[in-house]
């Protein structure tokens, strides 16, 4: 009776192993690539929501001001206003006349971009691994009343650049 020799059986095993390995690697790679896409999309969506909040706050603000950093803002909000900086404060007015602050802060040391409501203890949004975008020495700036923010998020897979603009319709 015919049968396989040891060499033939081993060869078949090697071929089967290689084939299985290739298919397995491909499927793993596809799943990994899908995971990377999901991770990057999630990071992108976080910044997109941050940008949307920025634009919305800019549109509804009754006042806004820029500061070099948190220390400058806390030291003297009236005297330390600058044309560009890493802290931006929008002041909104509720229907009952109450004024409420919306604060945006970029912390270069922690590489975080955060949004606060009221004061720096009420954090609403936090973006991590944020760096300054190329060509912009600060995150926030203004130009003839146009408030703008530029930032980049460095994920392990991709660097994502973002820009957001707002202009107070009540200050135009």
């Amino acid at each position, binding site marked *: 009776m015919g049968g396989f020799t040891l060499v033939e059986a081993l060869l078949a095993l090697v071929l089967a192993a290689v084939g299985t390995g290739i298919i397995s690697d491909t499927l793993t*790679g596809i799943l990994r690539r899908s995971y990377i896409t999901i991770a990057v999309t999630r990071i992108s969506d976080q910044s997109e929501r941050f*940008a949307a909040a920025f634009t919305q706050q800019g549109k509804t603000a009754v006042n806004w001001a820029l500061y070099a950093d948190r220390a400058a803002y806390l030291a003297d909000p009236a005297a330390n206003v600058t044309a560009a900086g890493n802290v931006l404060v929008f002041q909104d007015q509720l229907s009952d006349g109450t004024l409420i602050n919306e604060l945006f802060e970029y912390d270069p040391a922690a590489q975080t971009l955060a949004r606060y409501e009221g004061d720096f203890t009420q954090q609403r949004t936090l973006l991590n691994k944020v760096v300054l975008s190329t060509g912009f020495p600060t995150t926030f700036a203004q130009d003839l*009343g*146009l408030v*703008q923010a530029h930032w980049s998020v460095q994920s392990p897979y991709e660097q994502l650049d*973002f*820009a*957001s603009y*707002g202009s107070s319709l009540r200050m135009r």
Partner: protein
Amino acid sequence: MNQTIIRRRRRAGYSLIDPLVTVLAFAAVIVTALNFWRLAEYKCDRARIDARVSQILRESTDYLAYAAYDLLPVDGAEFRTGFLLHPMDPATGTYKEIFPFSVTTAITTTNGGTPAEQKQIVLTLTYSTNPEPLATNTQQETIRTNALTRAKT
């Protein structure tokens, strides 16, 4: 007369066609897997490119909507340039720049020089990407937005 019948046992073995079929099947598996991988990679890239294109258009439109009238770009100006994606290059540990893009403005001014002056602004986003998974060439794609109207006063 007795006739002796000698039955010879036929030795089993592979014919030429057997290994050829095996090699063909093996090659088919590899080619399918590679193409499947390329397609998945391309699909993910396209998803990122589409998201980035939407983001660039949103940012550019926001700028034109909220910028002071005097800050609006002039007709035909290259309003913004850059790269669509900055994927990490594992070999160098740096971010690559792929798929260049540019945004230009086409502006039609009406009632120029009067308080009723208006500008109709159309953005044109031009970018280059791979047209298909295996393509080595790049294909230029163009997107034009609807006209955005800004009034001087």
